[in-house]
């Protein structure tokens, strides 16, 4: 046979170049460029102005509120997600498909609708409205409402990531652990959890990013009280609508930085534990 050996899985050179260019172009245009513009606009009047916009009291309060809401919602959804995935993947029970479908609900419902549901339930005219008023409990236009909305919207992230992972792993290792004398709890901590920790980390980071960035549902329940119930995304919108572009972009840039930070954190962990990761994937 004449001619060079061609790798059977290798596509023609031109096609490869074309596909690479499309991919790079797409990423640059739709992901990198907007991010760059956010930072450019934030620094339009210099670093000092951007910094001032962030440490201004209303902005700081928005940052605090966002971190607090995520700080409550993410751990709760992590615990819930692990429990749900564990139940679905490692046990048989009736109503399993219904549970899985329900977990997906927040993904399929528009966040605005989710927010409106809370207004319907907890609002003055809502089911519990008069009860809450009588007992002076504030849910809407206050922290509890914002936390509830955030929990609802970020509900599926952990469970969705873990279910296929745990189904794929099966029950073999858990059975081995039990037969070696481990209790259910110790099997969970020593076998189940370590086997899902990378997927879990990824899911928690995504869940956190979404919790910090949630706009629609939170916007409906927050009431937009500047300095009190405005989260970071809501504060960005408020500044933007008031033609304070530097302020809006500065807070937006901070939000983007938080997201980038989580990605850096994930990359560092992956790099640090490369050996262990490789060992887990080959088997």
């Amino acid at each position, binding site marked *: 046979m004449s001619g060079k050996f061609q790798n059977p899985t290798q596509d023609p050179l031109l096609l490869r170049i074309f596909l690479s260019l499309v991919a790079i172009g797409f990423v640059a245009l739709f992901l990198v460029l907007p991010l760059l513009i956010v930072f450019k606009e934030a620094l339009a009047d210099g670093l000092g102005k951007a910094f001032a916009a962030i440490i201004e009291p209303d902005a700081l309060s928005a940052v605090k509120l966002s971190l607090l809401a995520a700080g409550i919602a993410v751990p709760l959804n992590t615990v819930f997600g692990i429990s749900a995935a564990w139940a679905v993947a490692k046990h048989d029970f009736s109503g399993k498909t219904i549970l899985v479908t329900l977990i997906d609900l927040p993904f399929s419902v528009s966040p605005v609708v989710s927010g409106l549901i809370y207004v319907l339930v907890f609002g003055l005219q809502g089911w519990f409205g008069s009860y809450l008023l009588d007992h002076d409990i504030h849910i809407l236009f206050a922290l509890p409402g914002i936390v509830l909305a955030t929990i609802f919207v970020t509900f599926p992230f952990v469970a969705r990531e873990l279910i296929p992972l745990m189904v794929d792993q099966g029950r*073999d*290792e858990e*059975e*081995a*652990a*039990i*037969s*070696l*004398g*481990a*209790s259910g709890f*110790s099997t969970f901590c*020593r*076998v189940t959890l*370590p*086997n899902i920790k990378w997927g879990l980390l990824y899911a928690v980071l995504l869940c956190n990013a979404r919790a910090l960035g949630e706009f629609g549902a939170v916007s409906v329940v927050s009431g937009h009280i500047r300095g009190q119930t405005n989260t970071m995304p809501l504060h960005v919108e408020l500044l933007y609508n008031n033609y304070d572009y530097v302020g809006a972009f500065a807070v937006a840039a901070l939000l983007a930085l938080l997201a980038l930070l989580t990605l850096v954190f994930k990359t560092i962990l992956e790099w640090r534990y490369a050996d*262990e990761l490789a*060992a*887990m*994937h*080959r*088997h």
Partner: protein
Amino acid sequence: MSLIIDSVAKRFARFPALNGVSLNAPQGAFVALVGPSGSGKTTLLRILGGLEEADSGSVRFADLNWLSMPARERKAGFVFQQYALFKHMTVADNIAFGLRVRPRRERPSRGEIRDRVQELLRLVQLEEFGGRYPSQLSGGQRQRVALARALAIEPRMLLLDEPFGALDAKVRKELRVWLRHIHDKAGVTSIFVTHDQEEAFAVADLVAVMNAGRIEQYGAPADVRRDPKTKFVAEFLSA
């Protein structure tokens, strides 16, 4: 202290996997289970190990009502068909697992655990491999780790589900002699599942030939071979 299995039955959905299996074995016996795929060998082993619940029937072992005991209290060392090693742990940690999860009162000290793991690594001839992960081992090495892990808990009963399934004939021959040696040394009662009847007849004290959820014949290898009781056994042995 013998093993008495009495009319154990198990169905999956409507499918009968075990149709009343009875079998007696003296303490310290090495029993081989042979039979075609799907005949219920793994199911019987899983019931003995407490990983599956029997629908009816009873098992007495060491004068205990075996089936009413939770799996974790049975001290039945299980060697799985697919190894089921802990992927995220090194070989040494895999072997130490059964000792580390003991309640504090019964747990050996760190030093004792380390010594015990070394001893077991030597026993399964993997002294240099304690620091490796299961993914970095060959099939036969993984199988030996699985055996060492099961032996670490000082089991009263060893349940071996085709432990040499993935290995070539030569290695199997070496390992079965070695396994029999370990069985004798540990003084356990072992149930050993295999597809390979030659292997079963070579190592076991007693052989049970299973078919469609039943034991067709049970006895000493020489007796079963000399005098097959059913047409199925005769055909199975001549295959």
